[in-house]
């Protein structure tokens, strides 16, 4: 029964969409390499890399097990720097001493100050899909714990 509950949680909790900002990518083979590296990851439905925007746009498939850390690690492997990311994530919202955290099973997203009062007032513990901007953690210190500024509740 415990396994069934955990299984149900992990299949629901996941990243659905990532617009990952990438610094340092200046040429077509750079974009080609990043696109190819990302496409090799299981769980991606669609990948598009834009040199002019400096972004990788990712749509993730249902029941994927990808994490933002895996995506940013791939950016780093290509020699670039992963910065902020606009994400849509489904997860379990937990109230910890008055602060909310979204857990996906593999990663934790702490909701930071700056989120509007209107959005904050709508947050309730339980399964939820959130839209927000994940702050840059620096390429050398990716731990799977993130700070997110909410921009919407879906």
């Amino acid at each position, binding site marked *: 029964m415990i396994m069934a509950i955990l299984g149900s949680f992990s299949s629901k909790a996941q990243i659905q969409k990532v617009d990952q900002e990438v610094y340092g990518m200046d040429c077509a083979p750079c*974009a080609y390499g990043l696109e190819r590296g990302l496409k090799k990851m299981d769980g991606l439905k669609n990948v598009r890399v834009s*040199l002019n925007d400096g972004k990788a746009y990712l749509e993730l498939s249902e029941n994927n097990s990808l994490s933002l850390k895996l995506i940013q690690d791939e950016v780093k*492997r290509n*020699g670039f720097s992963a910065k902020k990311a606009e994400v849509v994530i489904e997860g379990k919202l937990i109230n910890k001493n008055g602060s909310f955290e979204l857990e996906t099973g593999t990663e934790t997203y702490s909701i930071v100050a700056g989120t509007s009062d209107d959005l904050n007032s709508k947050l309730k513990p339980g399964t939820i899909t959130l839209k927000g901007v994940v702050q840059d953690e620096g390429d050398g210190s990716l731990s799977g714990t993130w700070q997110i500024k909410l921009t919407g509740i879906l």
Partner: protein
Amino acid sequence: MAISNVIFRFILISMFGVSTIFTINAQGHGPLYGLQTPTLAKGGVDLNVAGMSLSTEDETSYMLRYLFSYGITENLQINLTTPTMIERLDNAPRTRGNSNMPANGDIEASLWYRFHSNAFGVGKRFESTAILSVSAPTEDVRGQVNVGNSVHGAVSTGYASRTWYGWIGGGYQYYFERNGEQLGDLPYASVVVGYRPDIFMGDYPKPDWRIFMETLAEFPGDNQYPGQQDLTGSRSKKVLMGPSFLGLYGAWGVSFGALFPVVQDLTPSAVKENYRVSINLSYWL
């Protein structure tokens, strides 16, 4: 063939063999002649075929050269380059060829280490790379001098963006003595400025073209023979300039360009150059 040469070539081939075990990926590209900084992605593979020609006042060389590069990490790249000499020069000037290739009949293995990289904006980065190479000749005699193995080291630093590029670097190649004779050494420096016009600012996967103005300064030492008086202080001074063009489309890259001498202050035994031309085709696996 001397045992040391056999061992040297074995090391080169072993480095090539080990590097082909790994998986593949892709990344960056820079100028044709000048030193550059980009390194491949971790696991990335780049294959190059180049056609090179160097014309002196007496003769012209033609060479095909193949380059295999592999990204051990995103900051450490191993390269192996081998030549097919079509026409050798009897009296070859001491020079490097394309930025990561010898201009003569050497087989060369090199390590590129990007020891500094700062990606500070969309499409922008500032980075520095150190290069260490070893090479073994494919001929016994070059310009009436016994050819030995050589070592080469260089450092370059540069800026890349979506519009402007610039690299500056310097290097040194040293040939070991062989049977009492020794090819002259080669200190050199390069400066490259690159630009991409607005018309080629289309987003990936559209074709991507850029133009470079390359400058190369070389200070080759004279060859050393038995019984010759010490001419260590005697060096030629050459400055060459010219344009090169780089086109990129998906996994393919083509670059071509030429260098022309603007300064040739040569020692009596050095040969005068007319031009260098080169074309390079790249494929990122």
